């Protein structure tokens, strides 16, 4: 038997602050986004996926790109306006409309409205930190993103990378209770809130968000103390370490995009079914990159659309699988596909001609030369369970 070839770059792999812990826990290490990361631990992807959906899973996402965009002077009545003036021209979010301590998914767009990255942006909770944004971009795009943001900001604001830190995600229905035991202040937080919280006298930045569709947190922690913190979380019987394999099956069931696969510069937010990230205020102002195309697509619709796809048999349909209409015309391609352990069957997403994007539309997937039955499915495959 032969697995798909693993393309390895000649560059030496980077290590996160938790690398030694992964190896000690028996993690199977693979290259991801330039880092040596655990794809799974000895229990395996299926058990890790199911554990996260029923208890709490701990993920090392330190390969991602957390950073801060910071005005030379923080605080003051116009700090939010100033930092929004700098960042908004790059993205489609209403940054100045963020509440204190609110986080949002937004898109970094090119001038044609193509998606350069999807990222999380948050406004600080504390007044004296106003004029700073907490931004988390993807691992594979972070060098380009950081360079783009820094160049655009010029001397008006400084981009402070925080990707030397550990970024841990604790996800699952028991994540809230686990964190409340360690940091009681987190109990008050709801979905998409960011707070600076003390954990054992260590101040760290915590958001109530994640990439699994479950309740949970992402915790930015100083590198030198990260392993002790991770081990403290893992000492809780409700918590197990989870690798990137289960992270991928969890986010796919949750209907979330993986940059470079489900979205890239060839896709607009409308095609990607991410129109909801183009905020009302920005639509009215029409002042985001690619606004002309995106506003036109909002009005008239795009030719193709990202949808959920449910293969009706047992065979998974992987990325790159051709999608045909019921009468055998090529209408699109799968961009993420695999097996969903919670769904207990194959799940996928991809782009289809908008004429075939309605939920329930029958499709054919060409897998190993055979046309397999499938249909357009509503996303997410597994309902989100955020703490509102």
């Amino acid at each position, binding site marked *: *038997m032969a697995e798909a070839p693993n393309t390895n770059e000649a560059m030496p792999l980077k290590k996160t602050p938790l690398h030694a812990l992964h190896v000690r826990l028996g993690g199977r290490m693979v290259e991801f986004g330039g880092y040596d990361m655990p794809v799974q631990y000895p229990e395996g992807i*299926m058990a890790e996926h199911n554990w996260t959906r029923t208890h709490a899973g701990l993920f090392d996402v330190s390969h991602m790109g957390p950073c801060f965009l910071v005005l030379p002077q923080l605080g003051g009545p116009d700090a939010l306006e100033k930092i929004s003036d700098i960042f908004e021209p790059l993205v489609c979010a209403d940054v100045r409309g963020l509440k204190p301590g609110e986080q949002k998914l937004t898109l970094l767009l090119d001038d044609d409205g193509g998606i350069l990255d999807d990222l999380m942006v948050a406004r600080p909770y504390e007044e004296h930190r106003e004029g700073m944004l907490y931004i988390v971009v993807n691992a594979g795009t972070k060098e380009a993103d950081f360079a783009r943001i820094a160049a655009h900001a010029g001397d008006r604001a400084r981009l402070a990378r925080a990707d030397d830190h550990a970024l841990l995600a604790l996800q699952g229905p028991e994540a809230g209770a686990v964190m409340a035991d360690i940091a009681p202040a987190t109990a008050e937080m709801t979905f998409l809130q960011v707070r600076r919280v003390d954990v054992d006298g260590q101040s760290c930045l915590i958001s109530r968000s994640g990439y699994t569709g479950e309740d949970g947190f992402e915790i930015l922690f100083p590198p030198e103390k990260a392993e002790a913190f991770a081990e403290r979380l893992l000492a809780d019987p409700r918590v197990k370490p989870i690798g990137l394999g*289960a992270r991928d099956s969890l986010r796919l069931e949750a209907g979330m995009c993986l940059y470079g696969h489900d979205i890239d510069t060839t896709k607009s937010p409308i095609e990607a079914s991410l129109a909801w990230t183009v905020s009302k205020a920005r639509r009215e102002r029409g002042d985001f990159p690619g606004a002309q195309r995106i506003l036109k697509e909002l009005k008239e619709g795009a030719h193709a659309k990202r949808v959920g796809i449910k293969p009706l048999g047992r065979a*998974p349909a992987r990325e790159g699988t051709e999608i045909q209409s019921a009468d055998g015309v090529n209408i699109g391609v799968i961009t993420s596909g695999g*097996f969903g352990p919670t769904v207990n069957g194959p799940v996928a997403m991809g782009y289809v001609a908008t004429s075939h994007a309605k939920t329930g539309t029958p499709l054919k997937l060409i897998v190993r030369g055979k046309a397999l039955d499938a249909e357009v499915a509503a996303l997410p495959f597994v309902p989100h369970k955020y703490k509102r």
Partner: protein
Amino acid sequence: MTTYYTNEHEWISVEGDIGTVGITAFAAEKLGDVVFVELPDAGRQVKKEGDMAVVESVKAASDVYAPVSGDVTEANSAIVDDPAKVNADPEGAGWFVKLKLSNTAELSGLMDKAAYDKFCAAQ
């Protein structure tokens, strides 16, 4: 009965000119949780090192090659119905197909257990 191994991590257990084929414990462990198996129908001819079956884990699809040439006499429907059997007992109940060998001389190019274990240790 003698069992032979390929460097693509298939095993074949031969008695006379009938062989039972599967993937090794090493391969099953490496794949992780098997979620889908596609087997050839009985009667299909397979060629040594040609495509014979497909096995899919949560993460990826892998081809399973025929260790030797022959005709498929039986496919193990139990692993199609319950792919987890491949992980539970890869070199036993998790077998893939039975083959009627067309050229038993092809077996001489395969590894025995000791050689295969050494091969895996070097992977």
